[in-house]
């Protein structure tokens, strides 16, 4: 146990120096890209916002089912099958057919090549499930069908969220999927998340529709409130143009009316439709509806064929800028709800770093003094090992560009406290061995060998706890699991290689000394 080959000493030295260098790249700047790594600071240390958004898929499902009823009706009409009493209730479509048609309807829904009910061979499942009781059918999304629907709306939503966040221009946002209906947004360094929160909270569904008094409008009508919540207007359900037709939107100052407006440019289809609608609808009120509320409803005075126009609605410059941003980045497929938010201001983050560093320094000093007082020369060895251990730990965290959080710093301090355990186990064992063993070298050998199982057991139990924490914990707590877990490996390395190297050198030079420890 005490013999070290030259090669091994070289390896240990190189390994330690390498990690010390990597760790120091957090402070010094190296030209080499390999050393140009840094430990990431968690949001709790650098300040910023963590937002967990949940997609409300209900409206999407409702809409899809709505479309589906039309599709089903038309599909079977072509086949001369009459579908009766089709209606949607509680996310199910209900309808009934005559006795003759029952089997053909079932066949269509169970056909693996049917366009009506797509089949996913990978999951051995159709998009829709059909149940029949007598001549009554119940159609609903299958499990896989729902999953597909959710992931696809999640894909769309994350894209829109990314565009909106990018437009605001925060540095290095982190936007990730969580499950199949959530999106995690991490915004480092953001002091005031209010604006982003309000931007993400809006679906931004824009439509231009005529105000009508005709209750029997062919497309149906609905009563909508104005943005101010006071007035109301009856609006046709016929959509002239929608947000999808927009090419661009910008906030502008209308100098004539002395108000801020949002000017927009339409794509070809949109321009054509807008032109037609404004030419036939002169004198009518055109409602501009955003997320079910009327922004404004100007009277059409002229045909607008240029494919550009403007929205006014008593905006401040800020609200106009945000509206333009929302219109440029597109509408969300479904509303988002912020179900978890954690925001830390930058000055609190800095305070946490300072407090963490002071605690680390003090904890370290206390442990070092204690060990030196208790073990003298072997305490010194432990302390040197402890310092190298700390650097290797920081080096590993740097190498993997791990995220350091406040609990993570606590994990490092705790590692310092617990890292001496292995050395203490060994030294105490050596002391015991020396009671009946006169040969120092044999006693040291015995100390290392006999303490090994206890050390392994002890570290594996802590490691198990750290692993569970890593997989179950979230955010800052994960950072704790990382430092604690990595700390176990670096501790074992430094105890069995570095500390043992020092002890072996010391013991072989003091072979015959009495009361070694």
């Amino acid at each position, binding site marked *: 146990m005490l013999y070290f080959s030259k090669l091994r000493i070289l390896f240990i030295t190189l390994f330690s120096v390498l990690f010390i260098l990597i760790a120091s790249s957090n402070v010094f700047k190296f030209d080499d890209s390999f050393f140009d790594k840094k430990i990431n600071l968690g949001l709790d240390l650098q300040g910023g916002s963590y937002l967990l958004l*949940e997609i409300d898929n209900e409206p999407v499902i409702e809409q899809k089912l709505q479309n589906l009823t039309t599709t089903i009706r038309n599909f079977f009409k072509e086949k001369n099958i009459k579908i009766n009493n089709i209606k949607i209730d509680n996310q199910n479509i209900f309808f009934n057919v005559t006795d003759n048609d029952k089997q053909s309807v079932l066949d269509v829904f169970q056909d693996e090549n049917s366009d009506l009910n797509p089949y996913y061979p990978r999951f051995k499942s159709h998009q829709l499930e059909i149940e029949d009781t007598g001549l009554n059918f119940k159609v609903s999304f299958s499990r896989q069908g729902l999953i597909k629907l959710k992931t696809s709306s999640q894909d769309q939503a994350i894209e829109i969220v990314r565009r909106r966040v990018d437009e605001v221009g925060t540095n290095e946002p982190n936007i990730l999927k969580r499950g199949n209906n959530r999106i995690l947004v991490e915004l480092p360094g953001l002091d005031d998340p209010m604006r982003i929160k309000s931007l993400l909270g809006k679906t931004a569904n824009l439509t231009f529709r005529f105000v009508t008094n005709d209750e029997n409008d062919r497309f149906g009508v609905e009563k909508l409130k104005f943005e101010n919540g006071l007035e109301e207007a009856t609006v046709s359900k016929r959509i002239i143009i929608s947000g999808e037709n927009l090419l661009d939107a910008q906030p502008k100052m209308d100098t004539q009316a002395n108000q801020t407006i949002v000017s927009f440019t339409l794509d070809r289809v949109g321009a054509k439709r807008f032109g037609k609608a404004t030419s036939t609808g002169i004198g009518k009120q055109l409602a501009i509806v955003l997320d079910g509320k009327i922004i404004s409803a100007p009277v059409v005075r002229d045909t607008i064929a240029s494919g550009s126009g403007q929205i006014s609605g008593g905006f401040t410059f800020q609200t106009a800028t945000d509206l333009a941003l929302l219109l440029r980045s597109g509408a969300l497929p479904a509303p988002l709800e912020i*179900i*978890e938010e954690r925001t830390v201001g930058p000055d609190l983050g800095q305070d946490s770093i300072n407090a963490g560093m002071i*605690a680390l320094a003090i904890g370290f000093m206390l442990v070092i003094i*204690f060990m030196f007082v208790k073990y003298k020369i072997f305490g010194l060895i432990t302390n040197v090992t402890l310092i190298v251990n700390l650097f290797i730990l920081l080096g590993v965290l740097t190498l993997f560009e791990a995220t350091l959080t406040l609990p993570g710093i606590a994990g490092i*301090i705790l590692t310092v406290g617990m890292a001496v355990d292995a050395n203490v186990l060994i030294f105490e064992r050596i002391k015991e061995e020396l009671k009946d063993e006169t040969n120092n070298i044999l006693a040291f050998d015995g100390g290392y060998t006999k303490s090994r199982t206890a050390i392994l057991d*002890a570290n594996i139990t802590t490691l198990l706890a750290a692993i*569970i924490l890593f997989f179950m914990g979230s955010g800052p707590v994960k950072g704790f699991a990382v430092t604690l877990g990595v700390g176990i490996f670096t501790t074992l390395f430094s105890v069995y290689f570095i500390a043992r190297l020092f002890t072996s050198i010391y013991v072989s030079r003091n072979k015959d000394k009495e009361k070694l420890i």
Partner: protein
Amino acid sequence: MIAFNKYYNHFNLLSSVLIVVSLLLLIFKGLNFGIDFKGGTLIELRASDSKINVSSLRDRFNQMDLGDVSVKKFGNDTDFLVKFENKDNKKNIIEEIKTNLDKSFGNNYDFRRVENVGPKVSAELLKSGVIAISLSLALMLIYIWIRFEWQFSLGAILALFHDVIVTLGVFSLFSLEINLSIIAAVLTIVGYSMNDTVVIFDRVRENLRKYSDIKIFELTNISINETLSRTIITSATTLLALLAIYFFGGEILKGFSLAMILGVVFGTYSSIYIANTVLVRLRVSQKTVLREDEKK
């Protein structure tokens, strides 16, 4: 040699009382869950005007119809922690509060930290916390089962339950807040307490193989004494590190480090007075170990 075994019965009684009291506290008083597990909103506020104090803040917040509001000093005189239920999970609640506070305090305050946890998320966090702790106990049980004889596993697990329950009992008694970091602390305590127990058990087993004529009652005492200085030194350095976190690591880590300090103290105690007494009560002897050795 210290005669730890002289007090086995006394401390077993004490531990039983502690566990029963803790369980009663947990059942009847319950735990003070923070917003992580209960849902709600937390604001850490720093004031730059002496007009802003706990009572003036409480007055202001109570007028805002936010449900149950708690306002506390946080660390020093200028920092405050405000918590409320935010039952309806209102969207722009922070904005509303800011406008409202501006009216009475002007610009003399700053929100340093805002956390808002919806009811769905808090329920999930609580569930995953409970799963994490149960899973860690189960894993420890399996690990120690593989490594030791069943009598040892039982002793170690009883010691673990003792540590977790009594630590939570103290949190319940003093209404200390349970949040995500406390779960992390409890898991670490589980690891630490196990670590401590395993070291003594390792020695007990070694001594069982060595001495056939010493009764387990004596043998555990010998093993505890042999490992005592290690137990003391490791607990001491770990406590030193934890005390440094508690006193210098800032307000946010206070609950975490306190839980850990309690855990280390209970863990060290239980390794000696619970884990070992189980071996004594189960009359573990050299045969127990040798029988297992043969199987392997």
